[in-house]
C-alpha cells in the first residue's frame, strides 16, 4: 500500500515555542487515523502545517508521493485534500444548499467557465445527494447561520466531501455534537470511507468516538509523537496515560 499522506520530520516554532517538534507520520489509502493528545500538544498546528495554512519551519509533507509543503490551501484542495476546522466554519449567509455547491464549485473548469456557466456549476444534483446523505433535507434552503450547532457541524463535514476528496483531515468533528448526531456522523464517515476509499485523519478529544472510528491512533504530546498503534495498544500505553493524567 502506498502512503496517501507522508509527513517527515515536520517542525513549527512560534518564536521560542516549538508547537510541532519533529513529527513524522504516514497514512495509507483508505485508512482512518486518529490523532489525539492533550490540549496544546500541537495537533491543530500539525494540521495547519500539512494543509498550507501555516508554513512549517522545517520538514516535508507529501500527498500521493508529491511534495506539497507550503502549497496554498486552495491548490492543495484541488489536489484532493480537504479539511474541517476545530471551530465551526460554515457560511451563515448562504443556504445549506449554497454552502455545499460552493464547496464543490472550484474543482472543475476554469474561472471563466465558472463565470459564464450555470449558476449552480452543475452541482445541484450532487448537493442534493449530500443533503440526503447527511439527512439535512428539511433544512436545505435555510440559511446555514440559522441551523443548530450540531446541524452546522454536519454541514461543515458534508462540505469537506463535496469535492470528492482522497484525503480529509477532520479537526474535532465530534466537538459539541449530541449523541444521536454523533452516531449519524460516525456512520456517514464510515460509509464514505468504504464507498469512496477516502482516507481520513481525525483529531478528536472524544475518546469513544475516536477509538470506535479509527483503526490506528497517533498520540501527540508537546509536539512529538509519543505512541502509535491500534486503539487498544494506545489505551494501555503507560506514556499515553502519563501524558493525559500528568505526573
Amino acid at each position, binding site marked *: 500500500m502506498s502512503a496517501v499522506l507522508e509527513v517527515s520530520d515536520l517542525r513549527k516554532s512560534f518564536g521560542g515555542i516549538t508547537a510541532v517538534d519533529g513529527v513524522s507520520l504516514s497514512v495509507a489509502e483508505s485508512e482512518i487515523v486518529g490523532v489525539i493528545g492533550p490540549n496544546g500538544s500541537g495537533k491543530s498546528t500539525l494540521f495547519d502545517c500539512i494543509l498550507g495554512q501555516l508554513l512549517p519551519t522545517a520538514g516535508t509533507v507529501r500527498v500521493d508521493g508529491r511534495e506539497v509543503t507550503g502549497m496554498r490551501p486552495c491548490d492543495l*484542495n484541488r489536489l484532493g485534500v480537504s479539511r474541517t476546522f476545530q471551530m465551526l466554519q460554515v457560511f451563515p449567509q448562504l443556504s445549506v444548499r449554497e454552502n455545499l455547491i460552493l*464547496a464543490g464549485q472550484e474543482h472543475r473548469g476554469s*474561472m471563466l467557465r465558472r463565470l459564464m456557466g450555470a449558476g449552480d456549476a452543475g452541482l445541484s444534483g450532487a448537493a442534493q445527494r449530500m443533503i440526503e446523505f447527511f439527512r439535512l433535507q428539511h433544512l436545505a*434552503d435555510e440559511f446555514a447561520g440559522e441551523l443548530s450547532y450540531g446541524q452546522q457541524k454536519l454541514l461543515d463535514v458534508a462540505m469537506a466531501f463535496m469535492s470528492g476528496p482522497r484525503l480529509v483531515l477532520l479537526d474535532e468533528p465530534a466537538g459539541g455534537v449530541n449523541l444521536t448526531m454523533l452516531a449519524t456522523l460516525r456512520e456517514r464517515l464510515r460509509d464514505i470511507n468504504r464507498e469512496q476509499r477516502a482516507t481520513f485523519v481525525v483529531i478528536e478529544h472524544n475518546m469513544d468516538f475516536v477509538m470506535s472510528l479509527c483503526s490506528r491512533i497517533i498520540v501527540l504530546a508537546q509536539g512529538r509523537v509519543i505512541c502509535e498503534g491500534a486503539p487498544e495498544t494506545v489505551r494501555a500505553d503507560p506514556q499515553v496515560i502519563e501524558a493525559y493524567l500528568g505526573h
Partner: protein
Amino acid sequence: MNGTRLWAYAAGIGVLAALIVLPQGLKPYGISLLSRWAVMAIAAVGLNLTLGYAGQISLAQAAFLGIGAYTTAILTTHGWPFWSALLLAGGLGFGIGWLLGYPALRVQHHYLAFVTLAFMTMAYLIFRNEAWLTGGVFGINRVPRPSLLGWPATKPLAYYYVCLGALAIVLAGSWWMIRSPWGRAFVALRENPRRAMSLGVDIRAYTLLAFAFGAALGCIAGVFFAPLVEFVDPSAFTLADSLGLLLMVVVGGSGYFFGPLLGAMVAVLLPEWLRMAQGLYLIYYAVFVMVLMVFCPSGILGLFDKILRSLSRSAPLAVRKEAQR
C-alpha cells in the same frame, strides 16, 4: 414563494416603466437629477460588488469615477469617439483596480481603508495639479455628449435614456456575475476567507477580481458623468465623494443587489427634498444615516427584509434570495 417572486417582477416592471415614462413630464433640472442618479448608481453597483459582496472596503470609488470622467473629457475634446473613451476607461479601471487589490491581500478592514484612502488622495492631487493633462483647478470645458448610431443624445432627455440604458446593461451584467459561481465565491470571501480557501476558492484571484470589476464600473460611471455635466473639474472627485458613494451602498443595503440603486436615489434626491433646510441638509442626512445604522445596520433593504421577516417566516427567505443572490 412563487407569489413573492411574481410580486417582485411586477414591482420591477413598474419601476422600470416609471423610469422611462416619468421624465417625459419633467423639466430639464429634474431630468438631470435622474441622470445623475443613474450614473451614480453605476458607480455604487461597482462598489457594492467590492464591498457588499466581496467584503473589501474601498474609499477610492470617486477616484475611479474621476479617472473615467477625465479619460472621457480628454479623449472626446480631442475628437476621439465616445466609445473609445468607454473602452479605455473600462480597461484602465479594471487594471488599476486590480493593482489596488494587491494591498487587500495583506491588510483588511480599516487598514485597507487607509490604503484606499491614500490612493484616493493621490488621484485627487493628480486631477488638481497635473494641469497639462487635466486642466488643473479650471478643469476641462465643453465635454461633448455622444451620438448613438447617428442619433445625437445631446438633449437632456435623450442623454438620460443613454444613462438609464447604461445602468440597465451594468445591472444585467452584474446580476449575471452575482448569480454565477463567482457571486457565491465573493460572499464566501466576505464571510470566511480561511474556510473558503480550504474549499479550493482562490482567495487571491477573487479579491483582485472584486476590486477590478468594482473599479471598472466606477470608471464607466465616470465616462457617463463627464458628458452629463459637460464639464470636469477635481472638485467632483474628492474623498467626500468617495464617502458619499460608500454611504449610498451602506444606506441602500450593502450586499443587496438593488441596495445601491436605492442608496443612490436617497443620496441624489434627498438634498433636493431638504432644500428648504439649506445648510442643515447635511445634518439631517447625518441623523438619518445614524438612526438607520443604529436600528438597521443592513440598510434600507435590510430594514425591508426585517419587516417582512416579522410578518411571516417563510417569505423573507424567498425575498432575500431574490434580492441578494
